[in-house]
């Protein structure tokens, strides 16, 4: 890793997460890390390596396989003054902690009027060939719960900046990392005070003809499709919401009002999803400006298979995105 003069490095996604944890634990001794295999082994995928060596076993705890109580450890510890980061290895395993996340953490401020500075990290997506119980995308479920902030970094820079913001936030934040991107690189400021604000979308590419809203693994694919569309004379704007809840509605409405066309690309299936929400937003707020019906380009509504070719058949690829762009622009 070389640091450029302006303090920016090319980091892998996992390094962004790791650096955020190191910096925040260094900055604030109330930050602790709790989860399965996060300490000694440095995380099942190496994301939390060296944290235990640096901050010691008191602040970095390996837990048994007890997802509900892992979430609860975070809630209780936050209630008495820590700023815990708890890890629930896969999004699918958050299902075992649903009560603690949805009925307890999300209601804490409502019931007590107090803050609950809790960060829950988990990993989603079908980038890993791990099958129907390890690759699901539930972001919309959690985004539907008042009291939860939900972020979904799609690259190293956001993985670092959003996690740091989550840790500094006074309310429960679910950080959904993306399995298939752990080794993907993006230039990232090394600065300790570099933050990515919660609730603010990023326009990854500006364009005039179509707005593509994409999350997770679909962001890079959408950027590639935009590049190819440009060669054909179609100008695509790519927006990564980064925070799912609260959604940056302003950024999306502004863009769609300008382009008149919307394609939402995600790794979750379409029914009752973020894509459905964004299309509803466009219908409500941009109705007069729309020049084509909004499109939800999502994973097929089937369970996630294990073989890689079947996984790819299920989720949108660059060609699918390009086809959707062509469809809404008619060119």
């Amino acid at each position, binding site marked *: 890793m070389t640091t450029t003069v302006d303090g920016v490095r090319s980091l892998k996604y996992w390094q962004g997460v790791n650096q955020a944890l190191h910096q925040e634990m260094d900055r604030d001794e109330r930050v602790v890390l709790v989860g*399965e*295999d996060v300490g*000694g*082994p440095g995380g*099942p995928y190496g994301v939390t390596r060296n944290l235990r060596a640096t901050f010691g076993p008191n602040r970095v705890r*390996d837990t*048994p*396989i*007890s*997802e*509900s*109580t892992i979430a609860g450890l975070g809630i209780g510890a936050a209630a008495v003054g820590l700023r815990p980061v708890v890890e629930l290895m896969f999004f*699918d*395993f958050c299902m*075992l902690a649903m009560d603690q996340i949805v009925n307890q953490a999300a209601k804490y401020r409502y019931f007590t009027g107090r803050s609950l500075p809790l960060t829950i990290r988990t990993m989603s997506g079908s980038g890993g*060939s*791990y*099958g*129907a*119980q*390890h690759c699901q995308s539930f972001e919309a479920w959690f985004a539907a719960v008042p009291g939860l902030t939900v972020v979904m970094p799609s690259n190293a820079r956001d993985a670092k900046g959003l996690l740091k913001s989550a840790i500094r936030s006074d309310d429960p934040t679910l950080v959904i990392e993306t399995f298939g991107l752990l080794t993907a690189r993006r230039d990232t400021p090394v600065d300790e005070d570099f933050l990515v604000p919660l609730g603010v979308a990023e326009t990854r590419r500006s364009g005039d003809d179509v707005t593509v809203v994409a999350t997770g693994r679909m962001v890079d694919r959408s950027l590639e499709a935009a590049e190819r569309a440009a060669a054909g004379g179609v100008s695509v704007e790519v927006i990564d919401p980064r925070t799912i809840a609260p959604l940056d509605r302003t950024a999306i409405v502004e863009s769609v009002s300008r382009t008149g066309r919307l394609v939402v690309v995600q790794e979750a299936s379409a029914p009752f999803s973020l894509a459905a929400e964004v299309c509803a937003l466009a219908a409500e707020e941009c109705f007069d400006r729309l020049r084509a019906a909004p499109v939800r380009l999502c994973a*097929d509504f*089937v*369970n996630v*298979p*294990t*073989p*890689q*070719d*079947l996984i790819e*058949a*299920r989720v949108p690829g660059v060609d699918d995105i390009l086809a959707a762009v062509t469809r809404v622009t008619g060119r």
Partner: protein
Amino acid sequence: MPDDDRTPPPADLYRQLLLCRRFEEVVAEQYREGRVPGPLHLALGQEATAVGVCAALRRTDVITSTHRGHHHCLAKGADVDRMMAELLGRRTGYSGGRNGSMHIADPDVGLLGTNGIVGGGLPIATGAAFGLQVQGRDDVAVCFFGEGATATGNFGEALNIAALWALPIVFVCENNRFAELTPSSTHVAGEVWQRAEAYGFPGVRVDGSDVHAVADATHDAVARARAGDGPTLVEVMTYRLSGHYVGDPATYRDEAEAQAWRDRDAVARARAALTGTEAAAVDDEIEELLATAVDRALAAPTADPEELG
């Protein structure tokens, strides 16, 4: 002394143990060739748990298995060809090759499923026992789970209900000393087998390198369950000779400890109980069976993208 009526004849016993061992070694070779989609968790060293427990079961008894469950499936009578095909991602596999190792089921032989969720089988096996009880069947349910799963809420919930309703179930904790990358001392407080006592039913601990001891303990537990006397918790002390998954360098493991377990290997001991010719015949039979299974699987088409559901 082992009660020989309670385990299959020596050649059968060796055949079953060797099938579990060689099946996984062959699949691991295929994995290294890049032919196995998805992760692969092996139970090398743990074969006697599955074979010993299933020696006490009949076809109509049901089991739930785990993410590390090839040996449970094979011991309960799952079809070798269909398992191999599933692991190799082929259309002739148990689930059309779509799902792989962690999602194999064959209700026809009482195999309710392997599982990608640690502890996921505990409530299901308890439910199966409930179903068997309501129907007045004298079949039993057996729940296989790792010692890591004793940390889940499901464990406490399942044991409590099973005890309250005197369900026909045997909880088999396969204590292989590791949960993923950390030793069980990080995960398990106290002794697993003793937890049964708190719920008011028997808990026993057996040596998992001794297939006769495992079969004996299970026979007693199954007899209790069939008689309507409720659950038993059997903790089998075994050892995971493989990494957590194929490819795990397992640097956290103490080599001397692993060697001590290899020295007591149940498969080798079962082989030693046979004459040289008997043993060689079984060896040949299993190699042939597995080679055929691989050939058949590889001749079948890969999983069908149109068949997702």
